[in-house]
């Protein structure tokens, strides 16, 4: 009575089999690797594109833009060489200003970032900008060398002086606007001689 239906130790099992070609695993493997390679290169391209499209830290790049504009119009407008040099010096001075400013900012931005005050997007932009400013200054020096061979050393010294003097000028020129703001904020009534009307 112990041998009844269901004791399935000794019966053979019928398993379905399918014929698979030898090439199947090869094709599968190569498809996989190919798709990963394509994905990798596309991703890298996208990253580079993103980096180049990152908005600059600074609002504008006028010094640089003006130089290239003048350079391109040089022939048709018959622009004197010294004007181009002036534009290049202006560009150099601006690059010096930006690199000093970024150095000063980097510790502060790092602290703000680590404390969670700004997001990853800004941090990326900032690091990108540091590299760009460096690059910009190097490009400027190359242009200087092209304009006047051997000028580079003097150019750097001149750019530094110009940078500081321009800052002083800007501060001096802002006095008029500051005076206006003070009058408005403090509600001052001044006579023609600049004295307070009692």
């Amino acid at each position, binding site marked *: 009575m112990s041998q009844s239906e269901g004791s399935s130790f000794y019966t053979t099992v019928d398993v379905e089999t399918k014929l698979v070609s030898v090439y199947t695993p090869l094709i599968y493997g190569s498809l996989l690797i190919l798709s990963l390679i394509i994905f990798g290169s596309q991703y890298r391209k996208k990253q580079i594109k993103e980096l180049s499209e990152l908005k600059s830290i600074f*609002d*504008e790049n*006028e*010094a640089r833009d*003006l130089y290239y*504009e*003048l350079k391109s*119009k040089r022939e048709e*407008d*018959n*622009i*004197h060489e*010294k*004007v181009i*040099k*002036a*534009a290049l*010096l*202006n560009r150099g*001075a*601006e690059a010096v200003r930006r690199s000093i400013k970024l150095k000063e900012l980097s510790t502060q931005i790092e602290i703000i970032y680590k404390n969670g005050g700004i997001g990853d997007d800004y941090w990326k932009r900032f690091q990108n900008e540091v590299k760009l400013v460096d690059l910009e200054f190097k490009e400027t020096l190359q242009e200087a060398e092209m304009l*006047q061979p051997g*000028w580079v050393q*003097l150019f750097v*010294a*001149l750019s*530094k*002086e*110009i940078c*500081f*003097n*321009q800052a*002083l*000028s*800007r*501060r*001096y020129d802002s*006095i008029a606007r*500051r*005076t206006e703001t*003070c*009058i408005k904020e*403090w509600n*001052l009534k*001044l006579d023609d*001689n*600049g*004295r*307070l009307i009692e």
Partner: protein
Amino acid sequence: MTTELSYNGNSKQLSIEIDKKYELTDARSINVNQINKLTTAIIGESNPNFTPKPNDNLSKMIRNMFETGIKNMKQNKMQEALKNLTLAIEMSQRKRAPYEAFQIQLQDVQFMLRQKIDLELILGKNLEALQDLEMLLNTGLLDPEIFLRKTDAYLKLKQYNLARVDCERGLSLFPTNPKLKVMLNECNRRLAEYNGDI
């Protein structure tokens, strides 16, 4: 939004149409002005390898104007003296090349501003004196006299809180200065009156 850049072949100066709608044209016009100033300065240089060495002629002119001003002051012709000094400072700012040594330009400004401030205070032009004092402070010149004068100017303009803040700063930097201590007491007295505490 490129504003049209035009070049005048005769004066070798650039100009742009200022479109009040766009804020960035402000930066553009600043840069254009800076380039123009550089152009004027470079055109005057015969040597293409010009250095930051300050122009002796200009220094002499500025000094002369300054001394005329001092003379007028000694003769009690205050308004005249003020005009002279203002002109001297303007000369230093406008006529000197932007690449002339920054130290020299800075010293010009600091030295002459001090006299100008005194004149302005005598003439009762407190707001202008205040602006000049702030500029002096911005250039890094820390001197108890500046704080004294600033506090005085604020008091005369009835900005008692700002007066006290500046006076305290002066005392923090020069804790033993007796005049500042007297000034501080005066500020506190005026503030108490302003707040109805007396």
